[in-house]
């Protein structure tokens, strides 16, 4: 199970947070700070796995993260997930974002947090991996976007 997905930038500002277990808001912020602190001090050439976040989970959980330009994508998972599998999932997620936003950059995530959430919802649901096929994910996201667009049409027509 995935316990949390955090995206924050090089300064620790959250860009998307998704907890699959309830934490109060101040606790969430504390977790983000702690995770940022753990992840940011690591070089880029060390491994992508990290154990020992004390706030979330405990010994069964580890952080699997990747660093892309200005953003960190951090998944907090338990031992039932394969480490390399999650790394691949992060890659799939980022590539999907790249396709949906056409050359995604941090600004896209800043201004369209809701859309990023909708994409993520097609990849992970309630902490479990829902879909890993990028084409399928993009197809579903696009259909829903079209649906949204068709609903906003009446405003213009009237």
């Amino acid at each position: 199970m995935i316990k949390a997905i955090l995206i924050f930038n090089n300064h620790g500002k959250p860009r998307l947070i998704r907890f699959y277990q309830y934490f109060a808001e101040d606790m969430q912020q504390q977790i983000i700070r702690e995770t940022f602190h753990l992840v940011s001090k690591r070089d880029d050439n060390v491994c992508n796995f990290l154990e020992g976040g004390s706030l979330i989970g405990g010994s069964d959980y580890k952080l699997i993260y990747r660093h892309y330009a200005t953003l960190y994508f951090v998944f907090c998972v338990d031992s039932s997930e394969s480490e390399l599998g999650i790394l691949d999932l992060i890659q799939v997620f980022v590539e999907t974002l790249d396709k949906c936003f056409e050359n995604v950059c941090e600004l896209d995530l800043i201004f369209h947090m809701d859309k990023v959430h909708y994409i993520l919802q097609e990849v992970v649901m309630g902490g479990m991996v829902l879909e890993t096929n990028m084409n399928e994910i993009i197809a579903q996201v696009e259909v829903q976007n079209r649906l949204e667009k068709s609903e906003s049409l009446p405003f213009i027509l009237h």
Partner: protein
Amino acid sequence: MALKIVKGSIDRMFDKNLQDLVRGIRNHKEDEAKYISTCIDEIKQELKQDNIAVKANAVCKLTYLQMLGYDVSWAAFNIVEVMSSSKFTYKRIGYLAASQCFHESTDVIMLTTNQIRKDLSSPNQYDTGVALTGLSCFVTPDLARDLANDIMTLMSHTKPYIRKKAVLIMYKVFLKYPESLRPAFPRLKEKLEDPDPGVQSAAVNVICELARRNPKNYLSLAPLFFKLMTSSTNNWVLIKIIKLFGALTPLEPRLGKKLIEPLTNLIHRIYLFFSQILHHLSAITLVCFSWLIAFLFFITVLISLSSGMPNHSASIQLCVQKLRILIEDSDQNLKYLGLLAMSKILKTHPKSVQSHKDLILQCLDDKDESIRLRALDLLYGMVSKKNLMEIVKKLMLHVDKAEGTTYRDELLTKIIDICSQSNYQYITNFEWYISILVELTRLEGTRHGHLIASQMLDVAIRVKAIRVFAVAQMATLLDNAHMLTGNTQRNGICEVLYAAAWICGEFSEHLENPMETLEAMLRPKVATLPGHIQAVYVQNAAKLFATVLKSQEGNTDSTTAQEASQLMIDRLPLFVQSANLEVQERASCILQLVKYIQKLQQKDVEVSEEVCALFAGELNPVAPKAQKKVPIPDGLDLDAWINEPPSESESEDEQPKAIFSKEEPKHSRPRHTEVDEKELARRREARKQEQANNPFYIKASPSSQKVYQETPGVEHIPVVQIDLSVPLKVPGLPMSDQYVKLEEERRQKERAEKKKKDKKKRKEKRSGRGKKHDSGPESEEDITPAHMVDIVTEEMPENALPSDDDERDPADPHKALDIDLDKPLADSEKLPVRSHRAAEVLKSPAEDEEGENVSSLEPKKKSSKEKREKKKDKDKDRKVKMLFDRRLLRLISVMLTFIFLFYSFDRKAYDIQGNLQDGSQVVVSVIFENKCDSFLKSMEFNVLDSLNSKLQRPEGSGPHDSLTIPFQLPPGVSNEARFVFTVQSIIMPQKLKGTLTFIVKNEESSTHEKLDFKLHFTCTSYLITTPCYSDAFAKLLESGDLKSSSIRLEGVNMPFHHLLARICFHHHFSVVERIDSCASMYSRSIQGHHVCLLVKITVSVDAKCDEPTLLGNVLDEIKQTFSQC
């Protein structure tokens, strides 16, 4: 309408949307908090508007603010409103917000049940999808129970998109509502073979999660998974299945053998997959490492499989060798995974990993903390008696080098874990261990002072032979206490002094110079220590005092004893003033005691015997579970009140205060330890030898006592040599390295002795049996420990109940899911559907009243044309049994006069009455009459609750359970049943849909039938005839609180008094006053609304009420009554 929409959208253009909000926050970097608070005010205004678009926009912005750490739970109700929008765009916003901020204790979740159900059955698959996604994040036990059946239906949805989501969410439902697992499992199993790979993968995912915690229940699925593994093309599925097999094989060794071959075939594919991933990660040349990657994965699998196969140790050996290459690789991810795989092998094949100790130790130097931690973890499992000292020595070096307190603390705990594992099994020399612990106290800023302290206590108590040594070490520690407490940053470590003081006091008979230690314990600086440590100091000073007195016994010169008393009397007042209650109490008790002793001493009375008796008694470690295991004696009822419970207000005020510090020392006095003289002598001899070799050892000089008198402090300690590379060394403390050497020597000696003995033996018996012994390197068993742990088992209460059930956390949700899945499903286990559940009918205390109600009942017109056509042909011979069709209902009605069919105006079929006692209760009495020739039984009544009105069900039944009607109906018999409803708002009329299910039984057969109906809660039914006097009535009208309204009743042609009677009768009014051509009437609602009518002979009705909506509805109903006649 169009204008309104246009206006709405123009309004919207001036609202801030999410992008504007983000931009605004970015532009107000200096006063972000202030800006956001004005935004929140705006959002609150927007939420008050009726326009759903505005609301949705506001909720969307709240979701963003939630990410920034703002609590948005106050908007939970608005989120629900947005969720229930009919537009997908808004619905999605609502569900997203809900999934971000709802949790189990959010109370509005209760309101969402029906909305979610509606969305789940929506014709638009994306509505359903959005609802499922949202639900997966905030499902509660109630939601799980109410919606389990709906979700289960979705598992067979036509769209794979919905199917996979429904399958996945079932896991969450199982966790919250374990009863659903058994009924849902067959369908879940079915989904393993779903044609859509996404659905299949979801099902595998769910079953793997379930099986991870309770593997034995899923063994029967092994063949199915085996088939999947060989046929699936989805790598995700493969990984999950292999993980699952990893959990299953230890339970069924035969599986492992079967798996080896297909797994080997899989390697190629998996290798491709993983090499792809690694390709993204780093620029390593794939050709070189690809086989390694595949191998790594293969190994991970093999390990989990091999546990059941003893003959595979050779291949494991090979695996480990290859893993070594992986760990030596420069790629950090490979290194990490290699170590991870190693730790898995370690569990089953410790021997084969142990030979790679060098490599693991090397990893401790890695720059990457994750890898270092992994290596540490491995070391824990690798120690043996032989290599413990060496490993710990390496770790100690790392402790000194480590930067960053977290890693150092981790190292510290690991060292202690490694040493103390399975009752100090691997420690052969406890003097070495004590010196390691003492060395650890030099760590700067560690959080684990109490851990070290508890180890010191534990060892000193349980290893009797080590006490002499421990006491000497602790005395030195106490003497140098300022080194540990001087720095404020080192606060954590001062816990060690707690242990030191206690050990010195408790085993003070071993102290070489108790007087000096006593002085050290009573230094003024001690008063700066935390309270609980001071308390231990004071108490143990008293023990030391007793020892000093005892040692001076029989000595003609009593100055030392008197000095000791004087010292106590001089120093203790400092502690008597302590702010800590515990310290204060102990100090003042002991001070008075010493004063008394001093008096006796001056009279030359021997007191040492009595003083020592204060602290007599052996101390044993108590098991942590001991308290829990004390059996309850017969006849003791722990739940019974001893006194009457105090009133609530009192108990709220009384917060239990921690008067005494949490960590109470285990005080009690050991019986004088019966270490036999021989053993003591032997130990002493050995120690002298060690001391001689130890340059850091302070040799007890006979003059030391004098020195103390002149200059209390540390200056006199002969600091022989300080290794400057190690910072902050406490002078005079032992070096563990010495013991490593000594231990080596000891072992060699032992070996030599053994050989000698062997030779002797061989000489004696010339037979060739001696061969066994001279195998080259010493084996684990050959090392005899220098000290033994004397007290191995901890104390338990007498007649403790043996139980080992407390291993698993009772809060673990997976415990409830440990369910046998192969047993056939019992009827009682079926998931709650919206009806059909036996329950007791409620009896209402309200008596049936004369007033019959105008009620509008109609048979539910639900059947579709198609259905009717289908049924027509079947019906010819068995008409009786078809009931779901309107056309057929008429036929049935001949036989069965159920209220809903034979409803007529003046015939009472059902009656709704408000309950005066409770403003929210309404009693519905229903008469059931059987007009057919068959016997009716097992009638069950159910109503689909709305947000506003709910059928009251007996406690413990769910909101969709139906009520059993407590009687059967033979042909021609009628009977009445009552149902209580709770209604929140009464200002609007309401219709509730319901179903009655029953069994029609005649000679040949019995059939299960169902009848849909609607219950119409009119506003009138909430009114209660209440008499009112004319003056009170006039006052009420004058008060000005009431809103007025009026109607005309058209086409009424009846005498005025009939008209009034009718209103009274049907609408529960009473006449206040009648003056010729007009009459004033009054009634009250169950929630206390006043309704006043002025009815004129011209058949116009002027009415006043404090709730205009209610009034409007009542008037409409009156109008309807008269239009019908």
